[in-house]
């Protein structure tokens, strides 16, 4: 990977990470160390039914002032408004989120409203905030989103018909507790989907226009860990060592893309998610290899690093050959872990991809793509290949 004289970047990763088996039981100690006295817990019904919440509420004891659990798969601005009103009513000075991306991003929106007041639609822009927001502790129950360490929240806005991208450095979670036991109940299919989300974050961190040497290094190691441990998790969900390594890799990939940003894969995934409700991780996993093919001539050096992380770059291979090998390897990898291959598996139709292609041109991620995308027909071809 070459860097030139114009290299200029900020690296920002302020979240404290606590990792270990049963680390989630330390939530009250960790929360107190951040000065929190009254926490509202944000989660969803699936987490409660899986029995993943009881020990956390118990550990928080009297510091838990309420549980907000009315969160759908693709959370919306109204859900954030309702959650913030609930937290305010209960006097919360801290938010503890327990769940996957939708839960964590809802909690991020709530943190803004708890500090600034108003409704989420009032915060229409990028980097609008000028002060630290309500402290947020994240306990992820999936390993993929990376949202526990990023400045980004993605919230559906039905009025806009699009997912709203909230980018705020002042709203990055203060603490992430990575407890491998919290992901052990994740079914094989979701393990594959969330794992491919993490790989996509790492690959997009490498090929994005804003990539930098620090994020590149983190992304490469995240891919190495995922290549080694994700298939083990997919095969045997009870392997706690692998679960832990995949969790760490997902967080690392989150750090990488928080700084380098994501690009065309996410622009397309956000859009097809908004139009046809394809879960984000699966959309990323299905689109990744074809998006890499789309970008191939623009960044073979980045994809050669992916080949190296996969351990498939042979001696004498130039960057372009290595990049092609990486794309092939990714396709095989998705099959190996049992990941869906086509959007039609999620009932996506031709007119959905036409709408999504148009929508993707307004997604903030697309401007970071190494190959300039100016026309919807360019990305429609990618969608057609994976329909």
């Amino acid at each position, binding site marked *: 990977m070459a860097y030139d004289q114009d290299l200029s970047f900020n690296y920002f990763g302020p979240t404290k990470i606590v990792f270990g088996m049963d680390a989630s039981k330390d939530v009250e100690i960790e929360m107190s160390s951040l000065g929190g006295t009254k926490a509202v817990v944000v989660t969803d019904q699936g987490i409660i039914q899986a029995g993943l919440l009881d020990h956390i509420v118990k550990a928080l004891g009297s510091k838990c002032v309420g549980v907000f659990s009315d969160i759908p798969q693709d959370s919306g601005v109204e859900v954030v408004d309702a959650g913030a009103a609930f937290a305010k009513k209960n006097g919360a000075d801290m938010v503890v989120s327990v769940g996957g991306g939708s839960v964590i991003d809802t909690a991020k929106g709530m943190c803004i409203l708890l500090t600034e007041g108003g409704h989420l639609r009032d915060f*229409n822009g990028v980097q609008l905030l000028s002060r630290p927001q309500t402290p947020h502790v994240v306990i992820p129950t999936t390993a993929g989103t990376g949202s526990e360490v990023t400045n980004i929240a993605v919230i559906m806005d039905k009025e806009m018909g699009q997912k709203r991208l909230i980018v705020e450095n002042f709203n990055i979670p203060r603490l992430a507790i990575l407890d491998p036991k919290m992901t052990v109940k994740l079914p094989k299919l979701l393990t594959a989907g969330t794992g491919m989300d993490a790989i996509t974050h790492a690959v997009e961190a490498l090929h994005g226009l804003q990539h930098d040497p620090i994020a590149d290094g983190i992304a490469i190691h995240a891919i190495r860990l995922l290549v080694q441990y994700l298939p083990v998790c997919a095969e045997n969900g009870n392997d706690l060592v692998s679960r832990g390594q995949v969790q760490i890799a997902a967080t690392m990939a989150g750090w990488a893309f928080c700084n380098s940003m994501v690009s065309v894969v996410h622009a397309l995934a956000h859009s097809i998610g908004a139009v046809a409700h394809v879960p984000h991780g699966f959309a990323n996993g299905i689109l990744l290899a074809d998006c890499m093919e789309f970008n191939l001539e623009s960044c073979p050096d980045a994809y050669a690093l992916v080949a190296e992380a996969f351990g498939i770059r042979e001696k004498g291979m130039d960057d372009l050959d290595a990049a092609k090998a990486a794309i092939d390897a990714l396709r095989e990898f998705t099959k190996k872990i049992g990941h869906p291959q086509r959007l039609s598996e999620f009932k996506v139709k031709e007119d959905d991809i036409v709408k999504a292609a148009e929508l993707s041109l307004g997604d903030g991620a697309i401007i970071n793509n190494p190959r300039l995308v100016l026309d919807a027909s360019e990305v429609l071809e990618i969608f057609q290949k994976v329909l």
Partner: protein
Amino acid sequence: MAKVKALTQEWMDAYKAAILSDPDYKRIAKDWEGSVSLIVNADPSKGVAEPVYLFQDYWHGEVGEFVVCDQAKAESAKFVMTGDYSRWKQVAQKELDATKGLLQGKLKLKGDLPYVVRNIKVVNKVVDILGKFETQWPDDPA
């Protein structure tokens, strides 16, 4: 050609004239609708004693009002971009890419991000033009 003092009405007039004389602007901006304000935060140490509010009106390749204004007018624009004086100077001198500056938190944007992204060519064009005329910045040596 004499340098124009930055952040003054004279500078706004020069900026508007530069946009109007650009051979590509009208075509690139034919779909853009709406006003843009730039807010320059005060930095007394660099000769900017008070915040400066700059209002620019763009409409389908035409250029309307281009004025130094008060806070209320600036905040009424469809898009409001805010940043420290030094950041705006970096943008004008092409040392900072405006999009990158936004994503890194060096500049703030209030307004519809998807609209801006769909019209990123227009944004890049007007930022490019901003650097095309000689400017005397408040902290430049006289």
